[in-house]
Structures are given as structure tokens and as C-alpha cells.
């Protein structure tokens, strides 16, 4: 890990001042992702601003049906909050399945939303777009220098390489990594907004708009502006919601596919559906076809299956990850059935 300056503000205002200092900066909360990426030399902030000591950044507030979550709230606190479990089981379940007890004790909501993709090409220093090229040379950012590897001009590391964990949707472009925040899908499904405070003041955006598909090398997948700090997330409870995650290991592991749903019910029938997938596209992926498929129906094995099938119709898997289409179909089906309490797979 390279040397950096360190500040530990106790107010949001101070944090924003510290983040806005000269050079690159990074907000440090739980550190479970940032510190590791700094050790990998992938992220190199000149200044690290530790935000976990800011009291106003932490906490869960439930006022009527409005839920406000501080960005530095630890995942363990999300898991243990009784009212949140009642109102937003999709959020609780997603938080519960992140990492391990130690990680949930450290990691925060904001850190999870802003974590960098768990993608082995990115972690190996090739960025998010499948490798940067100069003519026939693939350049890898290494220890501050660029080292050439001779490749075909059309080479794309992910498309040509081991893409078992990569995206299966939105795969026409160069960004083929799979977005790996577990908390983004449930929050997007619940229509949550995020508050960002920066040098130019405060703004509120839908959580979905925290993410974009990078178009050029070096561009981040996060839409946070320089010096901006994610301070809280807010949503209105109401819809039935659930998260289902397919993971290989039962212990500490990443989701292969994660699906969150939020269903507004009209009697037994779904009047409005939100179906959001994680780990299948470079951004949290809204499965609109699945939403249409389930809307107006009673959730049953058959309708959930049909929604799962609809969800994958636009999938364009890569050479190795066709299996994730099956996982997506299953995850959508199971998330929908979980939302109505029919966990047929647990038998």
C-alpha cells in the first residue's frame, strides 16, 4: 500500500472539506474493499478520509413508512434492526449474505454501495473495459508504469478470457464486469434515493443513478463527483420485498447472481413490480420484462417461473457464463416466491 495522508473528521462538513483537498481522495468506512484495493495498487488515493467517526453518518431511522439509513451504518446493524427486517426483508437478507461476520461488523451501507467491482481483470490492473490498448499492445497499469503485452487489436480480456463471473446483460460494449454490490438491488427495487454531499452542496438522486457504465479507460462506474460523500439512503416502505442470492459457498462468498424484488399488491395480485438483479451486468440490472410478466398476476410457481424466463430473454452471455442465465432465471423466480413466503426450494 502506498503512503497517503489521513484525516478523521467528525462532521460531514469537515469530511467534505477533507475530501475536496488537492489530489485524489477516498472516503474510508469499513475498509473491507478499499484497503484491499489499495494493497493491490488498483486504487491510489493521495488522501484517505475516515468517515466512520462521524456520528451523523450512522444510524437507522424509521419514521412512519419512511426509512433513512446513514451511509456509515454497519451491515450488522442493518441485519439486527427489527423494524427494518419487518419493512425491508430484501435489504436485511442482502446485508446478511454479504461476506462474513467480521465483514458485516466492519463494512457499511455506503461502502457496499460504492465498492469496486469484484472482477479479476479489474483487480489485476486492467481497468473495467477489458484492457486498454495502444495499437497491438495491451497496457497494464503496473506500479505506475505501463507494460506492453502483445495482443490482437481486437482483443478484449473479458470477452476472450475467463468470463465465468462476468456480465450476461448489456454485453455489447466493453464494460463486461458484473456489478457486485449486494445492497444496490434491494434499495433500487424499493425506489431508494441517495443523498450526496459535496463541495457544491447536497443533492439527492435515485440509488440507481449512483452507477453508470464507464465509456472510457479510467472512468469510474460510480457517478459520485470529486469530493462528494454519500451520506444517506432513504426509501418508503410498503411493497412486499425479498432478495434471493445464488452463492456457491455457504460461508463467506460472493453472489453468483442476486435478485431483489419489491411488489405492490392489490389483494393477491401484483399491481406494480420492481425486479433488480445484481452480478449480471455492469450496473444493477432492472429486469423490466420480468416486472411486466408478473404484474397483474398472483405470484405462483408458474407465474414466477414465467417472470424468470422473461427476465433472461435479453441475455447475451459470454463464452463461459451461459450458466448464469439459468441462475438468473432461478433467482428471479425464487425472489418472487420468497416475497410471498413460498420458499419451495427449502422443502
Amino acid at each position: 500500500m502506498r503512503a497517503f495522508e489521513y484525516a478523521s473528521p467528525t462532521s460531514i462538513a469537515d469530511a467534505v472539506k477533507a475530501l475536496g483537498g488537492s489530489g485524489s481522495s477516498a472516503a474510508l468506512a469499513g475498509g473491507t474493499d478499499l484497503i484491499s484495493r489499495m494493497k493491490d495498487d488498483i486504487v491510489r488515493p493521495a488522501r484517505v478520509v475516515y468517515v466512520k467517526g462521524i456520528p451523523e453518518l450512522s444510524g437507522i431511522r424509521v419514521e412512519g413508512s419512511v426509512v433513512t439509513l446513514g451511509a456509515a451504518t454497519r451491515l450488522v446493524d442493518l441485519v439486527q434492526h427489527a423494524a427494518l427486517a419487518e419493512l425491508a426483508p430484501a435489504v436485511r437478507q442482502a446485508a446478511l449474505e454479504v461476506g462474513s461476520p467480521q465483514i458485516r461488523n466492519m463494512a457499511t451501507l455506503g461502502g457496499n454501495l460504492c465498492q469496486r467491482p469484484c472482477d479479476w481483470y479489474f483487480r489485476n490492473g486492467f481497468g473495467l473495459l477489458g484492457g486498454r490498448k495502444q495499437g497491438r499492445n495491451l497496457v497494464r497499469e503496473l506500479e505506475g508504469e505501463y507494460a506492453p503485452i502483445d495482443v490482437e487489436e481486437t482483443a478484449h480480456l473479458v470477452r476472450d478470457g475467463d468470463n465465468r463471473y462476468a456480465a450476461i446483460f448489456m454485453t455489447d460494449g466493453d464494460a463486461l464486469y458484473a456489478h457486485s454490490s449486494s445492497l444496490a438491488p434491494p434499495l433500487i427495487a424499493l425506489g431508494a434515493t441517495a443523498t450526496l454531499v459535496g463541495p457544491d452542496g447536497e443533492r439527492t438522486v435515485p440509488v440507481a443513478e449512483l452507477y453508470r457504465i464507464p465509456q472510457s479507460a479510467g472512468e469510474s462506474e460510480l457517478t459520485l463527483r470529486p469530493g462528494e460523500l454519500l451520506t444517506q439512503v432513504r426509501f418508503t416502505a410498503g411493497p412486499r420485498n425479498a432478495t434471493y442470492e445464488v452463492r456457491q459457498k455457504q460461508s463467506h462468498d460472493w453472489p453468483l447472481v442476486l435478485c431483489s424484488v419489491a411488489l405492490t399488491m392489490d389483494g393477491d395480485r401484483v399491481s406494480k413490480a420492481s425486479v433488480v438483479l445484481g452480478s449480471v451486468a455492469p450496473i444493477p440490472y432492472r429486469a423490466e420484462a420480468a416486472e411486466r410478466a408478473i404484474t397483474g398476476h398472483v405470484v405462483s410457481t408458474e407465474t414466477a417461473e414465467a417472470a424468470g424466463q422473461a427476465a433472461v430473454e435479453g441475455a447475451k452471455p459470454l463464452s463461459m457464463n451461459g450458466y448464469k442465465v439459468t441462475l438468473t432465471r432461478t433467482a428471479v423466480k425464487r425472489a418472487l416466491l420468497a416475497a410471498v413466503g413460498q420458499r419451495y426450494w427449502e422443502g
Partner: protein
Amino acid sequence: MPSQDPRGRSGPSRRDFLRGSGVAAATAVLTAPAVDALDEARAAELAQGPPVLSGDTTITLQVNGQAREVVVEPRSTLLDTLRNRLDVTGPKRVCDRGSCGACTVILDGDPIYACTTLAVSCQGHAIETLESFDPEIVPAAFHRNDALMCGYCTPGFVTACKALLDKNPNPTLEDVRRGLDGNICRCGTYVGVLQAALDAAKALRKEA
């Protein structure tokens, strides 16, 4: 916003922070008058934003109930600080990326990975490593149940287990599994570890 996080509330006060942390490029331990002078100097700077540390910095960590003064850099992890600078070598460095649990320590009552925690951020917080545990309870249960082989993951398991039992003195096997899911053993001692955790719980209940 009301805080749910005890650490958020019990963070170091501004003054404690300054006393404990030293300042940019200060390598020497600060004397008390120097700290007072700095307090005033820094007070003026607060208007500009929080103080910024870089380079060698003297901090004080509460390790196993003792205040330990140590020179670190902002980038020094808690794990490397404990192991390399304070000779607290119970916690081990294995994956160094927050995946395996060998570096587990208890911070304000919660098990965390010391390899992805900065030492500077731990000032004012209670750090417990397994060296401070009663050897007759959790370590003894690991010993009795042969819950270790090469033993390099064992400190992490013992620590995660102690933290689990502190919160849940009567865990089910499922609770134990979930509580220890952040730790990896390569020799394959899990069967003994699960038995040891349940056995330690029994021993604790007897003692209580």
C-alpha cells in the same frame, strides 16, 4: 440521525484525537506542553477542515487493556502494527485481504479483520486479541477437542469463537457455523472447531 453504532458515539474526542495521534511528519513522541500548544495551533486550522496526518505518527492503542504507544504510518494496518511493532503475534497474516479470518481481533466487542483496518482509525477503541483470553475457556476447548493442526488459523478461530460466545452464550451448531464463517482453515480442523465452540459454551455456562 440517532446512531445505532456504539463506535460512532464513542469515537475519540477532538482533543483525545490530537493528543493520541501526533501530527504530520512528527516522529517524536509529543510531550504534554507540546500537545497543548498544538491544540491551540490546530484549533485555528479546524476552520479549514480536519487535521491531516502523514508519515510517521505516534498513536496510542488500547491493546488487551493496556495503553500502547506506537509509531505507525497512516497506511499501517492494525494487523501489521500489532505483529510488527507491538509483538502481539497471536493474530496472523494469511490472506491480507479480509477473506480468511486469521487476523481476527475484537474491536469494541465485535470481531473484525485487522488486515483491512488502519491502526490510526483504532485510537480510542478497545482492541482485544486472544492473548488476553482466559486460556481455560475457549483455548482449552480447542485443545481438548483437537480443533487445531498446524495452528496458524487457530488464533482467528479462537477469537471469532470468543466473540460469538460473548454475545450468544448458548449457540446452536448452526449459530456456531455462521459465527465462524469468516475464517478459513487449510488443515481441515473444522469438525474439531465446531465441537470446541459448543464445548467452550458449555464450559462458560458452568462457570457462570
